[in-house]
């Protein structure tokens, strides 16, 4: 094992992490501001990917596809917020889980009705294909590098928005005291819709960006949703900063675990057994990480005590 391979794997972990952040940011904002557990967040990710695949097939343009993914997911977000989610803010979490689980089923079968049962084609554009040479002679996929840059840029934009803009101030105020900002004359239901649309758009963007190198198919959102929940639990529910750190931690742990654990076991076990034990343990690694974090910080890394 060379140090270069290790660096390449760390980049892979970082790339996985920033994409997870796009999912987790919306989830944690929605939970932080509205106190809502949104299981249908994975469906918004899927909608983004399907919208991008549809538009890309029609127009051949990847940029238009990305815009379509943002727009479609945000519109779907606004629609479900106004019709379903709005009625759930005052209900307890079990009702929210039930209702948003129903939304998953509706979106999945609705997507099947519109697009059919077979996976769709979505590819990265020509100008992002191929590999680039990084310093030290690491050959790395240009598209994955772009994902890292885009993910970090979105994260920076989000931090700026929360810290410096009026909407950001309202979001922070909403997290702290919902009733109070309502009493101060802020249109709280419009704020909720805006936050929901923002979270949905980020999930849709993640779906489209990831869809270009993965399978665009029904049910693609749920595995990512589970990881995003792990991220926000590790980071502290409601914290954007926590979601960012949590996402990078999960991305690195998962990628490096998959790569290193089988090799560690191979030091003292028969190779094929080591592969099997190592990869079984690797698939648990992020949950072990989560358990470890919760043991020392029950509210997550950046959760409010």
């Amino acid at each position, binding site marked *: 094992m060379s140090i270069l391979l290790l660096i390449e794997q760390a980049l*892979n972990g970082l790339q996985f992490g920033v994409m997870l952040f796009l999912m987790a940011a919306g989830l944690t904002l929605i939970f932080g501001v509205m106190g809502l557990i949104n299981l249908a967040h994975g469906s918004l990710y899927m909608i983004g990917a399907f919208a991008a695949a549809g538009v890309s097939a029609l127009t051949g343009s990847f940029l238009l596809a990305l815009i379509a993914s943002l727009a479609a997911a945000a519109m779907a977000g606004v629609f479900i917020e106004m019709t379903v989610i709005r009625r759930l803010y005052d209900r307890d979490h079990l009702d929210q889980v039930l209702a948003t689980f129903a939304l998953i089923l509706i979106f999945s079968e609705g997507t099947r009705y519109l697009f059919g049962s*077979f996976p769709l084609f979505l590819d990265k554009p020509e100008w992002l294909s191929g590999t680039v040479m990084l310093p030290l002679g690491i*050959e790395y996929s240009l598209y994955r590098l772009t994902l890292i840059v885009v993910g970090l840029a979105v994260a920076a934009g989000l931090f700026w928005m929360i810290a410096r803009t009026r909407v950001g101030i309202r979001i922070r105020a909403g997290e702290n005291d919902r009733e109070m900002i309502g009493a101060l004359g802020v249109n709280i239901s419009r704020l909720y819709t805006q936050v929901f649309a923002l979270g949905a758009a980020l999930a849709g963007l993640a779906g489209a960006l990831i869809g270009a190198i*993965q399978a665009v*198919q029904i049910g693609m959102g749920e595995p990512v949703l589970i990881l995003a929940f792990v991220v926000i639990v590790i980071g502290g529910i409601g914290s954007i900063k926590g979601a960012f750190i949590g996402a990078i931690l999960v991305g690195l742990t998962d990628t490096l675990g998959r790569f290193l654990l089988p090799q560690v076991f191979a030091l003292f076990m028969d190779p094929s057994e080591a592969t099997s034990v190592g990869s079984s343990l690797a698939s648990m690694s992020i949950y072990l990480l989560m358990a470890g974090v919760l043991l020392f910080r029950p509210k997550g890394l950046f959760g409010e005590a």
Partner: protein
Amino acid sequence: MKLKSLIVGASLAVLAAGSGWAEGVKVGMITTLSGGGAGLGIDVRDGFMLAIKQSGRSDIEVVIEDDQRKPDIAVQLSDKMIQSEKVDVLTGIIWSNLAMAVVPGAVAQGKFYLSPNAGPSALAGKGCNKNYFNVAWQNDNLHEAAGAYATEAGYKNAFILAPNYPAGKDALTGFKRFFKGDLAGEVYTKLGQTDYAAEIAQIRASGADTVFFFLPGGMGISFLKQYADSGVGLPVVGPAFSFDQGILQAVGDAALGVRNTSQWSKDIDNAANKAFVESFQAEYGRLPSLYASQGFDTANLLISAVEKADVSDADAFRAALEAADFASTRGDFKFGPNHHPVQDIYVREVIKEGDVYTNKIVATGLEDHADAYAGECKM
């Protein structure tokens, strides 16, 4: 009043027609029609129903239910079909874990089970049953052919990967059984994994000269797209599951030129296959996949048995199934002693015909290939 009696009369007629089924055969199809793996179940169903329709027989009734890819639901459905629907034959299951949950119970109650897809080793060896027939393959078969092909193509150092679950382990075992070279690496991935950057980096560093992978469905799409993007560029070999007609369009150029092993291909040259491909396209407006061909063959096997024997005479019906006296889309087809196919397995290459990605046969990987477990089966 007149209308009412008309309705009563009509209902009676329906009832009478219903009781007439004693002569025919009732089939329960449990397959995956919703969720991520639905494409496979839909293809099996469409292939199966096409054959029933073409036979023109009115004495075969098919009840279709969706198992949602969940073993517990599959078991509930099979109980319902056996107890209240009173089916004679069960079929349709795609996934090995669902088959393991349903098949032993169904055959123990004297029902016939015809598998159009899943072929777990446990049901081919010690757990075989006289009423269980697999019309597709034993799980290891296509991987064994891939191993044989990799050896023949002169590859010396293979990097192999599969998901960490029973069928994934069968896959790597099957490949290793027929591959004579060395292994540059052996990796088990998480079931349902979507990102393969870590594995691809290992492949790049491993010094392998070929890559064998078994990643069915969406996992294969993700792997192939990312592999093409990584610029590693080593030749890839795999079983047909990641290269079937349903998912090739989603992989696109990334799959072009890849060699894969299959017991069926749309260009197998026989009259039954030509007719099947044409009529499937005419009926459903898409090219058939290997799953569709398996559904079609399963139905034709059933029809051939119904023509010879009454299902209530289990021994005669079983003998008629064993004879496998039907025109398979695969050409030669017969059952081995454990009721699993003995058949040719081909090596195909992914090509582009016009705008459509599809496969063409380039070689025969293994001829008249049976499975490795037949010897353990005692019926």
